[in-house]
């Protein structure tokens, strides 16, 4: 295993190729253009296909088609583009089509700002399209984590026959860091993954094939529609086992910071500095923001924890709603927020923690 120095967006794309992704369709939008650009160069080297779609709407539909044909497929965008993709994402979820997409999020709402932000938490975790479907949503705080999450996302997607979202931000996408890239799946492995999906893939089957390959993102019969929704709900419930969370220095913490993604990385550094001053601060970082690690927050010792500080690059705060659900009024919760493309400062967090102790 060698370490290489890579930009977040390019590392995500390379991780996908190594996981066996052989189709990417996307549309340019800042700050994630390096992802489609990397795929455009890289996919032809592994007999894969890159298409620049005429829009985000078309690109996600191309991915829906390729993934329905049994190929490991991916798309990517940034906040306003993700909204456009929500149609196709909902179709993939409804038809139980495995695919992976990343949101290198930026300021919002509307066209927002092209600088990094965490304005899409509620969209990513609660309603990425119509119809109340759910997805595993991973939030990387380093380029290495973005690589590892992307690589494994394809396995989760195939396991569940469901879309998986990598919720990153413009900092993770643009930042260069040393990373260890995962092993490249062999052509035999990639082929066997595709072959396994041919039982349901929309690619043509013999007339006497007992299990017709009908990709159905909806049903004419209400009983069929309810059954599909019940099966999906059972899948979502099974994800309790997939919750991932990092609890950093929380054992004796008086102030617990909650933050995800790049904010959590900055908060971790603030915790280290606060600890040097003898202040007992800790951090709970959801790694899966959906399903959310409610238990990690709910099980804190509230006779010791004086307050929770929710840190987000979003105004208004969004993850705060999940934190409130977990805390259940057992201690005060305050926020430390920035938005509009401004990046969270470590000093802001340190000051906010000290204010809580005054």
């Amino acid at each position: 295993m060698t370490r290489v120095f890579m930009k977040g967006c390019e590392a995500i794309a390379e991780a996908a190729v190594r996981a066996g992704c052989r189709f990417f369709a996307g549309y340019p939008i800042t700050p994630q253009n390096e992802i489609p650009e990397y795929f455009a160069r890289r996919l032809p080297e592994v007999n894969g296909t890159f298409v620049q779609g005429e829009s985000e709407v078309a690109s996600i539909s191309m991915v829906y088609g390729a993934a329905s044909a049994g190929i490991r497929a991916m798309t990517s965008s940034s906040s306003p583009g993700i909204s456009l993709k929500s149609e196709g994402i909902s179709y993939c979820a409804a038809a139980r089509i495995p695919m992976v997409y990343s949101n290198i999020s930026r300021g919002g709402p509307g066209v927002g700002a092209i600088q990094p932000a965490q304005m899409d938490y509620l969209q990513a975790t609660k309603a990425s399209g119509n119809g109340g479907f759910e997805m595993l949503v991973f939030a990387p705080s380093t380029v290495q984590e973005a690589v590892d999450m992307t690589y494994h996302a394809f396995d989760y997607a195939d396991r569940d026959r469901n879309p998986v979202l990598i919720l990153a931000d413009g900092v993770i996408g643009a930042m260069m860091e040393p990373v260890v890239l995962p092993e490249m799946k062999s052509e035999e492995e990639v082929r066997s993954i595709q072959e396994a999906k041919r039982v349901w893939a929309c690619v043509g089957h013999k007339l006497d094939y007992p299990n017709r390959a009908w990709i159905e993102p909806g049903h004419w019969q209400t009983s069929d529609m309810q059954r599909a929704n019940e099966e999906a709900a059972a899948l979502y419930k099974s994800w309790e086992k997939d919750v991932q969370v990092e609890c950093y220095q929380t054992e004796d913490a008086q102030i617990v910071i909650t933050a995800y993604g790049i904010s959590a990385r900055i908060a971790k550094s603030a915790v280290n500095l606060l600890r040097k001053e003898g202040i007992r601060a800790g951090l709970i970082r959801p790694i899966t923001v959906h399903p959310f690690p409610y238990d990690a927050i709910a099980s804190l010792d509230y006779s010791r924890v004086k307050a929770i500080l929710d840190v987000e690059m979003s105004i208004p705060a969004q993850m705060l709603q999940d934190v409130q659900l977990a805390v259940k009024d057992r201690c005060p919760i305050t926020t430390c927020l920035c938005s509009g493309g401004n990046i969270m400062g470590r000093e802001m967090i340190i000051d906010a923690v000290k204010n809580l102790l005054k």
Partner: protein
Amino acid sequence: MEQIYARTKAIQEDKVSGFCPGCMHGLVVKLIGEVLEEMDLVDKAACCLGIGCCGLQMDYMAYDNITSPHGRACAVATGIKRTNPDSLVFTYQGDGDFASIGLAESLSAANRGENISVIFINNGIYGMTGGQMAPTTLIGMKATTAPGGRKAEEHGYPMHMCEILNQLTAPVYLERTSCNTPANVIKTKKAIRKAFQNQLDKKGFSLVEIVTSCPTNWGLDALKSLEFLEEKMFPEFPLGVFRDR
């Protein structure tokens, strides 16, 4: 006794279509099934269905199909065909799907010269949603969203997809047919066959636009609908081959 005609095996035996009496969707679907069977392509077929009445065949065709987001069938077909070039990938779309909400996907797939076949049903009206104005609705024709009839100054003119796509360099085959007479049914079947053969020959984008009737939403009976096709629709949408390379 010698059997000279049988229902195509590409349609499931125990299923019935959900199409209205006098509608030509059922006829076109039958033609597609027959062509697939005659060309021995049923086991390679992947049909990308549009949204609207075309989706009514979802449960009774016997070959693989995928329901596309509204208007995106050509994009879905792109994803399947690019990754599975051995499959016979075709879209089946109505006028709202192909020429209104899907205009970007339709034009862009044609412009890229995707090696797919498009079966485009043009009946000048939105069928499933109940008679709203389509991009192909005739001037003066009433629709529930144009109760006084389509007015050029307010709604613009009917869109001619064969003619529009004929401005692009990449498409290889563009033909407009109908199913109002036995002769035209045979022509339509030949056109579908040609569109599929082009794909097998890796030639590129083929479009068969089929001008059909919608008795339910036109407010006419089946026979009057045929007259309407000849007297009103064909002058606006002339039948013929626009391109064959």
